[in-house]
């Protein structure tokens, strides 16, 4: 028996197909991340509004789309929305009629609900005194938000954002249930052709692992860049001895 459960020839042959699958996964990550973030801002403002009529629907949105498992959301959008007559005849059927459109809608809604909470937590973490001081200086509300609250909130919330993005990437693995051939689906179809239970899935695992860790590294670099102004006391995470190294070689980043 072969000690290594991986068939190297099969792995080499299936690389192009797996890479195509990875591209689909990347696409299904990137687009919902953008749409979800764009949706999260208005919903977050509504959620934080003192007016009950605005806050309550936003809260219900968050509870539903955060609490429901992604698989059920996907089924709901893919199978459930087709029931609605008006939607089937309306112009949006281009989106809801295709598996891709459904997956993107479900993933975006889910991501938006999580991001509302991330945003809200980060915005609430900004010390109130700073906002009051900015108001006292006569800075307009828009500018306070853009140049005072958001930059600070971004620093407070970066870790939570990273966690959400990483778990989101892993969540996209379910889109194969609506016939999209993402990385997971490609690995599954290779398994079904060859009955090799290890090679395709472990190769897909390597791709996922690389993608997730690339995102982690990206966030680490972004976080370093955001806190470059206090590089001396940045070593919150870095032990004192490595602080100098960290300053010298900022490009050297481990996940």
């Amino acid at each position, binding site marked *: 028996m072969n000690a290594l459960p991986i068939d190297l020839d099969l792995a080499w042959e299936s690389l192009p197909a797996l890479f195509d699958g990875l591209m689909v996964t990347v696409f299904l990550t990137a687009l919902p991340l953008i749409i979800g973030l764009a949706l999260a801002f208005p919903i977050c403002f509504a959620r934080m509004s003192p007016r009950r009529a605005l806050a309550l629907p936003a809260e219900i949105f968050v509870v539903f789309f955060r609490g429901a498992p992604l698989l059920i959301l996907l*089924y709901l959008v893919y199978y459930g929305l087709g029931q609605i007559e008006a939607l089937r005849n309306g112009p949006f059927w281009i989106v809801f009629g295709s598996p891709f459109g459904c997956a993107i809608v479900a993933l975006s809604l889910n991501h938006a609900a999580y991001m509302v909470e991330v945003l809200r937590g980060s915005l609430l973490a900004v010390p109130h005194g700073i906002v009051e001081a900015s108001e006292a200086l006569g800075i307009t509300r828009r500018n306070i938000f853009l140049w005072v609250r958001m930059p600070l909130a971004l620093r407070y919330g970066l870790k939570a954002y990273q966690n959400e993005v990483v778990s989101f990437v892993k*969540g996209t693995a379910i889109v194969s249930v609506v016939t999209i051939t993402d990385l997971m689906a490609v690995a599954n179809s290779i398994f079904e052709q060859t009955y090799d239970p290890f090679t395709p899935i472990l190769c897909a695992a390597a791709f996922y*692992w690389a993608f997730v860790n690339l995102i982690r590294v990206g966030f680490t670099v972004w976080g370093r860049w955001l806190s470059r102004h206090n590089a001396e006391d940045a070593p919150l995470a870095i032990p004192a001895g490595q602080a100098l190294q960290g300053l010298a070689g900022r490009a050297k980043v481990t996940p």
Partner: protein
Amino acid sequence: MTNLSLADLAGYLRQLGEGALITLELFFASFALAFVLGVLIGVATLSRSRLVRAAWRVYASIFMGVPSLLVIFLIFYGGSAMLAAVLGEFGARIDISPFGAGVAALGIVYSAYVAELVRGAIENLPKGQFEGARALAIPPFIMWGRVILPQVMRLALPGLVNVWSFMLKETPLVSLAGLQDLVAAAKIAAGATKEPFIFFVATALVFIAFSAASLWLANRLEERLDRGQRRAPVRSPAQAEA
């Protein structure tokens, strides 16, 4: 509008109820496995040995960097071969059920998260707790069981609640390996009745209700575990007014 008769509805509800029980069993079994494995791994990997630490980093990196669905498929498809490799002839005869594969996969994946929490909590404990136990000549086993871990649980509880609710939302994935759980039952009912909207929304609400109930319980538990930490409430004037 709806084409459901009352008798049909009752039949589907019974199926959904059975599915929900399987989902619950799967969830509790996987969480228990993740918890026990996680605590053991968390305590074991605190050792100073470089090898152990390196092994922990690899383990955590792999299972935190890969979708749970992939691990479920890996164990479901490849589990028999793995068992055969480890246990020999005897292992090859064990059939992997979707339920077993799901429990093993979710348990292994989330044990990494639990271990991370436990490690963080142990490292945050004051050194004096260990030194005190040693000075009193408390045997290590009792020290871990009666002194360290109860405090660790208090510190790790918020994180464990997170893992709990995250894991709950991943249990439906096992239906993709063929487990007849709540989601599979909902899918069958939705297909047969042509009423997918109602069934999927209802299923989603079951999950939301369960996670809300468990959050409420977790808050009670947190209050209870914190009872040794509470100080007499100091009323500041501002709070008294509010």
